[in-house]
């Protein structure tokens, strides 16, 4: 199983840790986000390069057609992988996918938000963000807090190379090509991607299922990890059957 992280990089949060307890999970770090390899982003110019990069990675890992789970930006990439070479993705789980754009109900400019603003924007109905908002990082802060801010910032910079300024790169033209069994997981209080966008994913991908978590925000797997894990597990069991 491959997990593709969101815009601010790979984080081993409770959801991912538990996913990895029950499955063999490959969680690649988006090029440029691996510590010490910040320049790796320079090798990729456009989305096409990123898609091919992941196929190359699958080849190297010996993955013919893995389950792919993606969150937010990672879900956009996952959808592109499933649409471009449909036989390379065994099943597809899209958690709050970006990649579409409706002018009358636009995606929030999440890439331009500060870390605090984005943390608040992904909160669900409760208003409490599932990601910790650390106090402002200063030169007096401990090194771990500084590391985290640097990591967050550089990861956003590397992923937004492919989604700036508007996170839409033509995925709507390609979604119909997805043949993998597909599950879309979203929160009905998503303030980054309006809930109505899921309808288009379901419509375009034949046989796609959708689960909407009431009260969850843009990161339903962080709001309600156990529930989302269970849903995904059931979906994978059915997909393999």
């Amino acid at each position, binding site marked *: 199983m491959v997990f593709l992280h969101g815009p601010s990089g790979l984080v081993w949060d409770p959801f991912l840790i538990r996913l990895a307890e029950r499955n063999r999970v490959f969680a690649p770090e988006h090029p440029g986000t691996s510590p010490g390899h910040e320049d790796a982003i320079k090798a990729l110019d456009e989305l096409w390069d990123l898609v091919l990069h992941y196929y190359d990675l699958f080849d190297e890992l010996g993955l013919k057609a893995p389950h792919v789970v993606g969150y937010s930006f990672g879900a956009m990439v996952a959808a592109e992988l499933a649409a471009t070479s449909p036989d390379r993705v065994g099943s597809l789980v899209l958690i709050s996918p970006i990649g579409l754009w409706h002018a009358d109900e636009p995606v929030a400019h999440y890439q331009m938000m500060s870390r605090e603003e984005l943390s608040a924007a992904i909160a669900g109905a409760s208003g409490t963000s599932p990601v910790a908002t650390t106090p402002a990082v200063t030169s007096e802060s401990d090194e771990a807090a*500084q590391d985290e801010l640097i990591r967050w910032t550089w990861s956003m910079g590397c992923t*937004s190379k492919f989604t700036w300024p508007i996170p839409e790169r033509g995925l709507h033209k390609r979604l119909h090509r997805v043949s993998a069994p597909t599950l879309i997981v979203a929160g009905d209080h998503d303030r980054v991607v309006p809930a109505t966008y899921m309808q288009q994913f379901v419509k375009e991908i034949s046989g796609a299922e959708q689960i909407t978590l009431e009260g969850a925000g843009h990161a339903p797997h962080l709001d309600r990890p156990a529930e989302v894990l269970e849903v995904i597990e059931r979906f994978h069991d059915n997909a393999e059957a």
Partner: protein
Amino acid sequence: MDRYKLGGWHVKISMFHFMPHRDLPDDFEKRYRSAYVDVPWSELGDSAMIGRYYNWGVDELVFAAEAGLDGICTNEHHQNVYGLMPNPNLIGSILARATNHLDCAIVQLGCSLPLTAPPVRIAEEYAMLDCISGGRLVAGMPIGIAMDANMNYGIPPIEQRDRYYEAHDLIVQAWTRDDIFAFNGNYTQLPYVNVWPKPIQKPYPPIWIPGAGSSSTWKFAADNDYAYQFLSYYGWLNSKAMMDGFWDFVETSGHDANPFRAGFLQLVVVSETDEQAQKDYEQHIRYFYNKLQHLPPHDLFPPGHQDFVSLERGVRNGLTESIAAQHETVKYMSYGDLVEQQFVIAGSPATVRDQLREAATQLRVGNLMVLLHIGSMPHELTLKNIDLFAREVQPYLTDLWEDEWENKWWPERLRSRGEHETTGTVAPAN
């Protein structure tokens, strides 16, 4: 270390102008998120009024040139109220024509290279300005601030620096190559590059690189033998550490300590006495800092805008945090504080002379840019400031760096005072 004994090398002093919105409401910074990007035209824009700003601004810069300033400077900003010139070359062309009878440099500081596609357009427009002005162009090549490049013009932050380097390479090749060539860049592909016209100045007009302290900008300027211009609104005292770092860098990279390879922007207001300066200018200085500089610091550094080394350094040494803090605290500084800490050099001619001399000497800059129109300053007051500066301050500074170094970063025909062949055109009637 070579030193040249030449006539007429001395500090160059140019007037800088932003052409800002001069009439924002009193509660502007309380009502709006930022002076940039999303400041609403529907509530604050007035085309006729802005037309007046442009015409006053041109008059003020031409007045400065007539009064003896060595150069006049424009700049590029978009979708904001702090600087209303999306295309500085339109203004530059008016200034070029209007000053053809004067020994004054047209300092375009300048076209933000990544914002124009294809970049040959900048090569062409700068060449036009050089031709119209008879070879008086200074070709500024800023990288562009984040709000303009990333938010207003949609360039992915992480690509901005690479796009800048590629645009620079294309422009310099377009100016200097004799052959007609294809350019297969990452961001621009052109089958035939054959710009008409090319600049008068050979191999190209002096190139200035404005920056706000990034060491990769210093390196770029030093490696290419361009002049580095430090633009800051917090005065020379706050800039000394930065400029010391720049000069250390220059030395360790094996370049000479020629002061003309550096420049600095300083806010300056002159009045009859120090007390009168406060009466004349305080509200406009406040307006500049509180309204025109009103923006969330995060907008200056969208992720990817700083390269990784600068990002890491900025977090660990607290520089990024202190920039954000300074943005806030300056709004609460009293006029007295702003003047005492020389964020603004303000006062009688004697006060201003002394402080500006010290600034130029301590920072070791051969190019001084003075912001003589600040914020909401009305037209007549601006002319007063320019007039007093030109008559009572500038002449007392012209001995700075005199005859010590060659100024390689100034239009050649303007490098010494004296008789010049003009283009033969007269300044147009106003």
